[in-house]
């Protein structure tokens, strides 16, 4: 049966990540990076990878990693979400690593595990599991040409894994024929990039079913594990809001003593509690290779995406005017939550996937219903 708890090792990992982020990723620093046009924090990423080895968690020991597993990866994501930390963990340690593992291209894993190189899967951030975009075409060489719009964690990547609909290719992100343009993004702490490839030299690492399977595996892992980041974002919002209403006074009382405020936060807590169970389930299914993983991943996005958004919205609301300002962290969470709600497909798309996975089919014909 699925194990929904955290074991001692996982709790210890959480403590380490949380302590490091508390020391080196306060929100003021993250906001300053956004304001300064340097949203990613390479120094923070070096610490996370160097001191805690987070990038190697999902990589087997024989390939240079820690051989931990996706349950641990999920714990890291919770903490990264709780701090809206600006590091490319999702793109490199989840998407790219999972794609490489899936197609057996293990040679590059060691570099990713040690953080010497960063990578991402070059698909639009909103791509849901099961889709395999083909906006790029390969020619002899091989070289790739085409464009991929709105890729997450591409800006700091050294390596791009690019599908062309049939094959999956490794492309040097800093190499010739690759042009990357930062997108003015809703979530400035995980900005997207538009990528244009013009006869960029590439290496084919998988073809046919192996390639589409690798992309699907990566996106499924992304959807399943992003849920843990969403739980972290929601928890961060809840903590922030609770902290505020306990100290802010109006009408001679702490705002948090007003019943409507209490009940709103209690509802958020219930949702976060449920989201945690759902996200743990998805991580556990992924970790043990459960045949239900696709369903668990879609369930996770259908539920947790909305919880993070609600928690962030309530956080802004309960802060009143101050939560609406630039100089307060609430908006960092709101933008991360809202952007993540589209990542790997909206909750709506995942509910549609569940219609198939859970056998709840759509009406025989629709729209034309004459009432």
């Amino acid at each position, binding site marked *: 049966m699925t194990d929904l708890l955290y074991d001692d090792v996982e709790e210890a990992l959480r403590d380490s990540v949380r302590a490091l982020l508390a020391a080196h990723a306060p929100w003021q620093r993250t906001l300053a990076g956004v304001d300064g046009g340097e949203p990613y924090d390479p120094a923070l990423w070096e610490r996370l990878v160097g001191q805690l080895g987070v990038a190697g968690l999902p990589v087997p020991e024989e390939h240079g990693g820690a051989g931990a597993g996706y349950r641990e990866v999920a714990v890291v994501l919770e903490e990264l979400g709780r701090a809206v930390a600006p590091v490319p963990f999702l793109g490199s340690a989840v998407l790219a690593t999972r794609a490489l593992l899936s197609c057996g291209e293990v040679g590059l894993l060691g570099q990713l595990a040690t953080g010497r190189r960063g990578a991402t899967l070059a698909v639009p951030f909103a791509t849901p599991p099961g889709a395999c975009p083909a906006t790029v075409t390969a020619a002899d060489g091989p070289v790739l040409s085409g464009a991929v719009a709105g890729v997450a964690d591409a800006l700091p990547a050294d390596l791009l894994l690019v599908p062309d609909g049939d094959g999956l290719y490794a492309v040097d992100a800093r190499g010739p024929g690759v042009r990357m343009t930062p997108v003015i993004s809703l979530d400035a702490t995980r900005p997207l990039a538009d990528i244009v490839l013009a006869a960029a030299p590439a290496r084919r690492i998988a073809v046919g079913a192996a390639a589409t399977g690798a992309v699907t595996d990566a996106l499924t892992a992304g959807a399943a594990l992003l849920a843990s980041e969403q739980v972290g974002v929601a928890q961060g919002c809840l903590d922030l809001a609770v902290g505020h209403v306990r100290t802010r006074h109006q009408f001679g009382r702490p705002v948090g003593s007003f019943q409507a405020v209490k009940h709103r936060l209690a509802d958020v807590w219930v949702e976060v509690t449920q989201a945690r169970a759902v996200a743990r389930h998805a991580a556990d299914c992924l970790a043990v290779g459960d045949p239900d993983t696709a369903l668990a991943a879609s*369930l996770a996005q259908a539920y947790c995406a909305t919880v993070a958004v609600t928690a962030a919205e309530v956080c802004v609301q309960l802060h009143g005017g101050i939560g609406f300002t630039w100089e307060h962290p609430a908006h960092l969470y709101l933008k991360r939550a809202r952007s993540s709600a589209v990542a790997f497909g909206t909750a709506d798309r995942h*509910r549609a996937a569940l219609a198939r996975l859970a056998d709840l089919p759509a009406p025989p014909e629709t729209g034309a219903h004459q009432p």
Partner: protein
Amino acid sequence: MPDDTAARLRGLVAELLRRHDPAGGRTAFLGARFDAGLAWVHHPVGLGGLDLPRHHQAVVEEALARAGAPDDRPRRNSIGLGMAAPTLVRHATGDQCRRWLRPLWTGAEIWCQLFSEPDAGSDLAALTTRAVRDGDDWVVDGQKVWTSMAHRARWGLLLARTDPDVPKHRGITYFVCDMTAPGVQVRPLRQLTGEAEFNEVFLTGVRLPDTLRLGAVGDGWRVARTTLMNERVAIGGRPLPREGGMIGLLARSWRERPELRTGGLHAEVLGAWVRAEAARLTALRLRQQLAAGEPGPEGSAVKLSFAELAQRISALELDLLGQEGLRYDDWTMRRPEEPDLLGRTAAYRYLRARGNSIEGGTSEILRTIIAERVLGLPAEPRVDR
């Protein structure tokens, strides 16, 4: 080491099964199980347990379920098993436990809860039922309400005011009420479904010997918290499988009756399915947490979301059924053993589910508990103490 305990427990179960045919009489088998310390392994020896950590219970349940042994019918005596037993084992004397726990466990004696009063619902501590000392007895007068199973119960968990002159939480004492005592009158309370699950209980000069007191005089509120904590955490029986409960009925109607489907309802059915699965996994996670530890306020979250879900799903079922959903099955005043949520009409489910956010602590009270005890938000200014 834990494996040793598991092996020992499996041995005890095997021996129980060897000596007592699980296909024989339920009460006899359950009695033997109690005597073997396999009712609640965390209870003391002699009181249905073996003084083991709580999480070992799972081994026993699993082995007995595999053998097809009868369970303790947790819904038939839900207050006894879910609330009275944990309260007794924590607050009752050894003599009291020996008198009550075995027949409670076997189902020979049903229990009910005499807490709520017409003017003390959410504000339970405002109760006015009086208990006055008279020699070795207490004389109880007052009215209780929302008492499920009172008409079948042998014993009732009773809160009564023994000192009206101190702040309201401090003047309360906890008793076990003998429901057969003279002066105990039980009247059915009909609810909006037409049936009467609940009762009003009138207590008029009821004499209870002091041996029926639980805990110290004036300490009833503290004892009651054990009962209430367990009320909210009680998740009877086995873990629900996917689509267990009301969502399964809805999903079945959806699958089997394509002519009822619309695009708009599809979105709502999928949304309800997602929430049901989230709630199920949350209950499962809580169960995993409880297997080792004590119940905490987290049970409130499960109760809150199950109530909301039952209301949402049953309303959606009515929308799906349309014209059919306008039919009811029976408005006559029945006295069911327990609400038949899955067996009756959709309209019954809808109506009955309205009670889920009221009974056993309203959703409003649960939210306040979560806000104050889990999130640490400050209490409201109090005007009543």
